[in-house]
């Protein structure tokens, strides 16, 4: 009997016990009509061949293991970063259960959002009544300060008009007339979660800036973008800007929302950009986006209102941070304090100390377009060689920017850029043109298992490791965190592959 009370075995060990192993074999042989083992082996090998790669990359319709999610997820994330804000997703309710779970699994935090729970009758008659009752219920039960409305596929396909629905709901008294109900149409069959983020941000600014007159001031707005490391990154951003004495408004500050304390109280709302700040943001001198592909429409909107704009690609690493800080000084006229220069020096020091382990390492990177750009750029600084850069939600413009970046360094010359491809394509790519390390999110663990390439988790979602999102990846200090993660993986691998019993080769105490 494998189980005992003294040492309780759960799935991780239990199913390796002979009783179970034998049972699996019997089930397979007698009942499963499974293909014979040699055939499985043969086909398995074939899936890693060049021949398979051609078929796999030649796919025109099928999508397998994509690295992207749908628009409303980004809208819910953006909506969460405002004071007392409740996300309300108009459409079928199953989607909302999914967004909440998805975010909770990554941040290990509560994730609140409501649905208008449309069903078959709403498909026929439209979802107006769901909007009217839904806003009334959400307002009464959860006492939000604003309700950020986005849409699921269902509402988009039947063509519900959010603006008119919200006006009618207000007429009916669902929420007070002056209560803020920003909205964004977020069709899941267009773009991805980063576009949903953009649309919701724009919707929020539209609502708060409507009818207001801009009195240009000195402030700077910052849009962080969709980011699994938002908790650490936004705090790091604020710290750096405070050191520079720059007055900023973070538009959608989720850093406290997805990092509430355990002290006996559940805070459905925590922190977030205050509604006064959002209103005041109209007067800012400029709006700066930390992630271009999360904010194209929003920045356009800011420009229309007379603001200067600038966007970055997830400032990570030495030069990307340099650029960001210098851009901030250009915009505000402040200077970069010595303390940040010291931090820069410490990062460069760390890179110099570890260069012999970093130089020439090859990488595959996947994730959202700005992240992949940032990561590749940082790796180039370490002497690493990105070989495959993939963004399922990256388009032509991104591809071009990537090529320019890679052309700027001799370490980038062998890199291929894969816009629009998925992780099953990446499997073929890495099987035929292997790399030393893979950088991406938790979904990459299947590639690690199938191909043996170690995975470094630096992108959303991270479900199977805890608390990484609490540490920044932006700025000089963030880059040190990233560096340590990469190095730990390299060293762990080196140890695991050396020091086999019976010899003492390469298992060095000091590295």
């Amino acid at each position, binding site marked *: 009997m494998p189980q005992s009370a003294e040492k309780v075995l759960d799935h991780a060990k239990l199913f390796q016990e002979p009783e179970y192993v034998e049972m699996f074999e019997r089930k397979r042989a007698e*009942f499963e009509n*499974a293909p014979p083992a040699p055939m499985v082996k043969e086909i398995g090998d074939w899936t890693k061949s060049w021949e398979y790669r051609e078929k796999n990359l030649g796919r025109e319709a099928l999508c397998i293991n*994509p690295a992207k999610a749908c628009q409303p997820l980004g809208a819910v994330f953006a909506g969460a970063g405002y004071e007392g804000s409740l996300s309300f997703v108009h459409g079928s309710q199953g989607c909302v259960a999914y967004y909440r779970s998805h975010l909770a699994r990554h941040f290990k935090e509560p994730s609140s959002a409501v649905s208008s729970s449309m069903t078959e009758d709403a498909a026929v008659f439209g979802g107006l009544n769901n909007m009217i009752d839904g806003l009334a219920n959400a307002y009464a039960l959860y006492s939000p300060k604003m309700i950020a409305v986005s849409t699921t596929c269902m509402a988009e396909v039947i063509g519900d008009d959010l603006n008119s629905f919200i006006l009618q709901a207000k007429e009916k008294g669902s929420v007070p007339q002056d209560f803020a109900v920003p909205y964004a149409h977020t069709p899941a069959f267009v773009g991805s979660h980063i576009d949903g983020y953009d649309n919701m941000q724009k919707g929020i600014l539209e609502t708060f800036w409507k009818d207001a007159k801009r009195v240009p001031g000195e402030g700077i707005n910052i849009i962080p973008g969709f980011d699994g490391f938002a908790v650490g990154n936004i705090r790091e951003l604020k710290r750096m800007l405070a050191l520079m004495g720059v007055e900023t408004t973070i538009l959608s500050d989720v850093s406290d929302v997805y990092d509430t304390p355990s002290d006996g109280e559940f805070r459905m709302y925590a922190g977030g950009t205050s509604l006064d700040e959002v209103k005041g943001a109209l007067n800012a001198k400029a709006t700066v986006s930390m992630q271009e592909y999360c904010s194209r429409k929003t920045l356009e909107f800011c420009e229309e209102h007379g603001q200067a704009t600038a966007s970055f690609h997830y400032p990570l690493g030495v030069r990307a941070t340099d650029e960001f800080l210098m851009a901030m000084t250009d915009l505000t006229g402040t200077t970069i304090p010595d303390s940040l220069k010291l931090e820069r020096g410490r990062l460069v020091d760390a890179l110099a100390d570890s260069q012999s382990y970093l130089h020439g390492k090859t990488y595959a990177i996947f994730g959202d377009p700005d992240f992949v750009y940032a990561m590749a750029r940082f790796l180039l600084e370490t002497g690493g060689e990105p070989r495959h850069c993939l963004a399922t939600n990256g388009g032509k413009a991104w591809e071009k920017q990537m090529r320019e970046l890679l052309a700027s360094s001799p370490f980038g010359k062998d890199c291929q850029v894969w816009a629009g491809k998925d992780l099953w394509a990446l499997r073929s790519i890495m099987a035929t043109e292997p790399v030393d390390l893979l950088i991406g999110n938790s979904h990459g663990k299947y590639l690690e298992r199938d191909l043996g390439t170690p995975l470094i988790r630096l992108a959303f979602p991270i479900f199977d490791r805890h608390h990484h999102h609490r540490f920044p990846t932006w700025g000089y200090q963030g880059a040190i965190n990233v560096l340590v993660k990469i190095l730990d993986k390299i060293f762990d691998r080196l140890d695991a592959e050396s020091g086999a019993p019976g010899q003492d080769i390469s298992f060095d105490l000091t590295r």
Partner: protein
Amino acid sequence: MDSMNADTAEMREQLIEEVLAAYPDKSRKKRQKHLAVAQPAPADDPAIASKCDGVKSNIKSLPGVMTIRGCAYAGSKGVVWGPVKDMVHISHGPVGCGQYSWSQRRNYYTGTTGVDSFVTMQITTDFQEKDIVFGGDKKLDKVIDEIAELFPLAKGISVQSECPIGLIGDDIEAVSRKKAKEIGKTIVPVRCEGFRGVSQSLGHHIANDSIRDWVLEKEGTATGPQPGPYDINIVGDYNIGGDAWASRRLLEEMGLRVVGNWSGDATLAEMERAPKAKLNLIHCYRSMNYICRYMEEKYGIPWMEYNFFGPSQIAASLRAVAQKFDETIQENAEKVIAKYQPLVDAVLAKYRPRLEGKSVMLYVGGLRPRHVVTAYDDLGMVIAGTGYEFAHADDYKRTGEFIKEGTLIYDDVTGYELEKFVEKIRPDLVGSGIKEKYPVQKMGIPFRQMHSWDYSGPYHGYDGFAIFARDMDLAINNPVWDLFSAPWGEKAA
């Protein structure tokens, strides 16, 4: 009255009133029907411990209240079809639904992923605007060809419809029929669009019907062992964390032959072969009773519910199953129970003293809110409240067999209600889902996810009970709960 006194029952009635007070009138009237306190069992019904069917269920959720429910797609792709391992399940529509449900149900299986098994893959038609505008049938057609080419060992394909499919008038049945002929494999179209029905539940039903229409009623290709007198199917066990394996072992040990496992670790052949079995054993009644009833009508296969959570129910179930067979099996059942008794005794000796008297609130799907109750009883724990996301009236009726009067019952609970109930009752443990986990823990109350076993398991069978007991203990008795308040109290700034 047992452990619950009249005061408690009254307090709970009052609590319901308090919670309802927050709703706008129209919604209050509707929610009222879903909340109740379990009533004394009628004297003429000795089979039940209390009356729990006072609540209304399987009704549309109110908009804007933060229902915890999912949708029909989740019920079909996520629950019933997704675990069938040698088929490719297409999330048909835009990318989201499949992305969020990717690998989240922990349906364990043996096999080589991407080669002869496909459960932990997210395979989607990834609809773009043009597919919505011009229809997606062409794309589906092409996708099926590409699957056939890239996954030659897949035994079949299911098409799991997401919301847009039913709204744009696609004919996935026609495409499936045509392509099944072309590629020579089973293709199952499933109309489980998320807007159908009121929860996951209709998705289960639709998925069951699609098994009936597109698998059982077709000429299957399953070859396999000659039918035997002890052949059974396990139905409605999704092998979460390996549940179905811990169950299978016991049934095999007692001399039965499990010819099909629906649908955890299942193959298409196991489904096709099911009608040749002698008995269907159903664990999750809610999600798979439909197909059992069908097999009973059509093939005369009897079915019975059983419960493999906790030693009392395991023993009772083993005996009840054995009753359907001959004396040899009955003797074997006793042997199996006797064999595991020392393990049960040791588990109880170790954990019961640490858990005795602790109170639990549950809120799960369609089965566990009643099925796990006796496992907690076995550990000396007390159920303070329970409720289902997507049960029907027959589930609430059955709930009365397991829970005591005075227990708080909440159907399709809202985020608001659950938070208030938990805050007021302050149980020693809450068992629910990922969305509920962190709010409850922040309040300083231990929590276990009872859909996914919180990444643990199995919980079924004797092997599973030891893990269940360990997990409840580690959740409740972890020292972190004593660290919540800072010691300086008034000294704070």
